[in-house]
């Protein structure tokens, strides 16, 4: 187990270095002269050159990248000239809120999708199954922002149940302290995920239902309830664990749209605002952190599956 984890960590670190290089060079391609962005269109050529020289932006790209990497190793994500703040501070202020929103959406989606997928698998080809599958397909084909707007139009404008704007509070715990204002954003994130999760869970459970161990469990007279909860559930959840791991970046990207739609001050909204401000240090750090989350998600998913499924050859 330990060797397996260590191997995975080593590969993850390599991938992370690769991501940082990819993102750094991409942003360099997009913005080759930060001095121009910071000082504005009216700044003289000399001033721009002086700024670039002072901050080392006139060095070769590779040197710039290496010194950026060195900064990263010291926990320094750079400085946002537009906000005149440390990037780490800016991101830290918003990260908690984004994480809570995504997490709440994920939890709601799993709570709905896992039982739904199991029910669909057990009652395969029944009316309930077909209806749920149909709804999933339509939900999956609906652009996230359209779904959110339809929810706003129904629950906020017509029924007046929930506010159309998310809470503007700066506490990350706003999902718990102000559930009314967060209901629609969480619901929007959850709805698209439910569509994917429940279909995954359904097909995994259908696969498992045909396996011998289920037949044995039934043959020895175990009540169906226990067959499902004790034997089927655990094994049918494996593909979903992997999927949730790989979906972590998608959840963040999804919340990009949702945060913009509900004006929720999280990382996604920060990213969009930074994009308009041409605040490249923030964009760089944000994209990098997205990559870290992806790698971390894959890593956790691998380890979780290894724990849940003892058959995986760990010593490999």
């Amino acid at each position, binding site marked *: 187990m330990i060797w397996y984890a260590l191997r995975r960590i080593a*590969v993850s670190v390599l991938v992370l270095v690769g991501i940082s290089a990819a993102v750094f060079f991409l942003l360099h391609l997009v913005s080759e002269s930060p001095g121009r962005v910071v000082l504005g269109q009216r700044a003289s050529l000399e001033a721009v050159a002086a700024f670039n020289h002072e901050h080392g932006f006139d060095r070769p790209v590779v040197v710039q990248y290496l010194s950026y990497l060195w900064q990263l190793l010291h926990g320094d994500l750079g400085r946002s000239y537009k906000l005149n703040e440390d990037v780490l501070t800016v991101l830290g202020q918003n990260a908690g809120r984004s994480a809570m929103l995504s997490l709440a959406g994920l939890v709601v989606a799993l709570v709905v999708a896992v039982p739904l997928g199991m029910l669909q698998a057990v009652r395969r080809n029944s009316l309930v199954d077909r209806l749920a599958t149909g709804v999933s397909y339509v939900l999956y084909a609906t652009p996230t922002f359209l779904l959110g707007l339809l929810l*706003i139009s129904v629950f906020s404008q017509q029924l007046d149940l929930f506010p159309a704007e998310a809470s503007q509070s700066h506490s990350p715990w706003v999902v718990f302290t102000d559930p009314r204002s967060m209901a629609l954003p969480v619901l929007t994130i959850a709805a698209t995920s439910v569509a994917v999760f429940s279909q995954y869970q359904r097909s995994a459970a259908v696969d498992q239902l045909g396996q011998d161990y289920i037949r044995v469990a039934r043959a020895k007279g175990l009540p169906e309830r226990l067959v499902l909860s004790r034997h089927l559930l655990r094994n049918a959840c494996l593909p979903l664990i992997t999927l949730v791991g790989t979906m972590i970046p998608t959840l963040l990207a999804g919340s990009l749209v949702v945060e913009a739609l509900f004006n929720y001050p999280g990382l996604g909204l920060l990213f969009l605002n930074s994009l308009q401000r041409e605040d490249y240090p923030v964009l760089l750090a944000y994209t990098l952190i997205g990559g870290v989350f*992806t790698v971390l998600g894959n890593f956790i998913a691998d380890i979780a599956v290894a724990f849940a499924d003892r058959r995986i050859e760990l010593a490999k």
Partner: protein
Amino acid sequence: MTAPEIDRRPSADPEPLPAPPSARTVLSGLKRHPIGVAGLGLLLLIVAFCYLGPVLWSTNQTDVNLLDAALPPGPGHPFGTDTNGFDVLGRLMGGGQVSLQIGLLAAVFATVVGTLYGAVAGLAGGVVDGFMMRLVDVLLSVPFLFVVLILSARFHANAWSLALVIGGFSWLISARLVRGEVLTLRVREYVLAARVMGASRRRIVFTHLIPNCLGVIIVNITFQMADSVLVVAALGFLGFGLSYPTTDWGSQLASGVTYISADYWWLVYPVGGCIILTVLALNLIAESLRDAVARKSD
């Protein structure tokens, strides 16, 4: 193209490996799936609507006419007009052409690049394969939507560049799929036979490996087209879609939804319906194709 058909199963092999799904078996497998056929019919209807529609329903889509702005559906304008006075029905057709083109172009681009990359990596094996696939891991871990946003904020987006950027980040999945497929194909007897006979790597890739991966490739291209249509829509909503006068469903929906509180429902629901139906049709087709591929290789 004919060689793999002949050498696929040497008679000496006691347990013949299942034949990989070819393009033809996959397409004929579609017939057994009524849902896939329904999806295909729906897609054909949408394509006909976008490309034949303007012939039957010709409208002015170039001159702004503020006197006719935001008219509700009525005679002359079955779906009303938008806030620039353009006929919504005609705009749906034109925007649909752009959306379908971007989706198809991105999917084709991603599939061609991904297939070649995956086939080369899978055939090469060893260190080369390891390096090429780690590179895919790296690029897959860079959040795709962010990069597209950064690029389209800086560079002026048109249908071609948008398709290239989306395709440029979507080839990774096809590369992984095709490599996995090639890994199982490269040890088959007919590939070994071709090698023994001195076939060049290029010949092996193009006449043996890629034709036998076509099933997987076709499934993937359909899914990617559906995803591309959704990505373009999301970009439009975030304000980084195509700019005037080109329009696509995403930008139309994005500008329509700003008027949702003004009760201009005809600017939201028809175009929203078009996007949903197109993505739905493509996903239904892809799902049935995937089922056909899986059944064939079982």
